[in-house]
């Protein structure tokens, strides 16, 4: 076990220095912060709402992540295949699980860092009123978990192809489905003719359903379990795809 941890850490650190050693990281962070700021202040009218909470901020995450996270994830495996380094990494004395986990954690941590940089908004909320910190904390945890789920989909689609563009499109489509299947405007449209149990079943697989309850300040074990098991399942598929596609 210590060996696994050690190897995962080595891979993770390599990936992270890779992000910050290229323009990718900075471009991503700047675009993320600009967009989230724009949506929060200009579309959701953070100030005008007159409420000391960050709902107008967090409600945008599912939509913003939809495009931004696949763009981080698309290079995870597709690039290794294109450059050929996959042959190097897979012939080093290190298990596939360690590589998948290391790469995933690095990307997840990177997204986490980008999210933490929204902290001035928390400060503003504090200055303007008396916010519910529990709720804000929950929303950060929830959006971080949701980011991980998006990322695991992107990591999986990235293993399918050596083209980053294909990987990106596949991930966006898959994530879009997972978001919309629990988004009230979509589920309401089906209410009239689909059985309720079916709608509930499908929407229970959605990122949105689980995100909304966390966002409301309810950190339910079931929601956390949903995200973690979803990530586990996607990364497992990621491994199976990689093993299948090497030959």
């Amino acid at each position, binding site marked *: 076990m210590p060996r696994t941890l050690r190897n995962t850490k080595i891979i993770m650190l390599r990936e992270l220095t890779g992000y910050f050693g290229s323009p990718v990281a900075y471009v991503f962070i700047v675009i993320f912060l600009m967009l989230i700021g724009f949506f929060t202040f200009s579309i959701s009218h953070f100030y005008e709402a007159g409420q000391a909470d960050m709902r107008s901020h967090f409600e945008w995450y599912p939509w913003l992540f939809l495009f931004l996270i696949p763009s981080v994830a698309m290079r995870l495996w597709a690039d290794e295949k294109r*450059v050929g380094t996959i*042959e190097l990494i897979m012939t080093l*004395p290190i298990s596939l699980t360690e590589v998948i986990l290391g790469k995933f954690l690095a990307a997840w941590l990177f997204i986490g860092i980008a999210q933490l940089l929204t902290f001035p908004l928390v400060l503003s909320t504090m200055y303007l009123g008396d916010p519910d910190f529990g709720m804000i904390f929950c929303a950060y945890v929830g959006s971080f978990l949701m980011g991980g789920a998006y990322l695991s989909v992107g990591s999986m689609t990235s293993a399918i192809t050596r083209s980053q563009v294909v990987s990106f499109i596949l991930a966006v489509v898959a994530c879009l489905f997972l978001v919309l299947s629990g988004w009230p405007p979509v589920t309401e449209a089906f209410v009239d003719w689909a059985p309720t149990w079916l709608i509930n079943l499908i929407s229970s697989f959605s990122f949105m359903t689980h995100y909304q309850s966390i966002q409301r300040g309810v950190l339910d074990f079931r929601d956390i379990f949903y995200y973690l098991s979803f990530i586990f399942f996607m990364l497992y598929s990621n491994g199976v795809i990689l093993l299948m596609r090497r030959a």
Partner: protein
Amino acid sequence: MLEIKNLTKYFGLKKAVNDVSFQVEKGEVLGFLGPNAAGKSTTMRMITGFIPPTSGTALIGGSDITVSPIEALTKIGYLPENAPVYPEMTVRSFLEFCAEIRGFSGSIKSKKVDETIEKCFLKDVTYQPASTLSKGFKQRVCFAQSILHDPEYLVLDEPTDGLDPNQKHEVRSMIREMGINKAIILSTHILEEVDAVCTRAIIIANGHIVANDTPDQLRARSGLHGAVRLIIQNADSENAKKHFSVVPGAKEIEIIEKNESRLTLRIFPESITVPLTDKVLKCASDNGYQVESIYTEQGRLDEVFRMITEVGEARSRLDRIVTH
């Protein structure tokens, strides 16, 4: 010992590698030869566990690559084809990363990396990102990665590809030196490389092993092997042909080149066990020819290579006919 047992690989219906078995002992440098798409890289990828074999396996110092890959891989250094290196990493950080994965840390890690940088002549580019390096440097960086942990077994896929003649020479002497206490497999399509570094060569064509011998023995299969090449001055070709055809043991005379002042001919022996040189010399002096040079041909690897691989191709065509 590196033991390759009945490795077979199908890509779909196509048989890329067909029942390849061989062994490499420590102290040997095995050259893996073959035309493009003969199955060299596929075989090496199976030995290093990158591609799972359809059947068969490779034992690396007793560890089965298909059963306990991690244990087997700790003993191997592998240079993949096209020498992949993470483009955004500097040479030093790349080698440090590889050293960490190999289990080195702290001052031992730095020492290993420094030594390897020194050995592979990478000092000038230590802090340069790999994406800015030329093909030759990338090749050496990836080669450095493969020898960093001083492995018992080395698998090198075209180690001198893209290097200039001086670098080729350096890498070859390094391989030869390491071959003294390691078991090394290297693939190449440069025949001079086999002569320069290999103690043994395997020729593979269409996934089959078609020859497994020392470079000298391989050369002996050449039709030229044992023939005497002679250059004489101011001679008439017809007369010379007549004179030398009566040399005892001579089978056939071939005129290679003829001009005003000199004549080059090749005399084939009836059997390579009987040396012909002294008899040819005697005949030349008897007939009053001025001999400018004379030597016994060793045979040429490229000729043998062509001969063997063409036979291999014919054989696999036959296989296809039989199986259809």
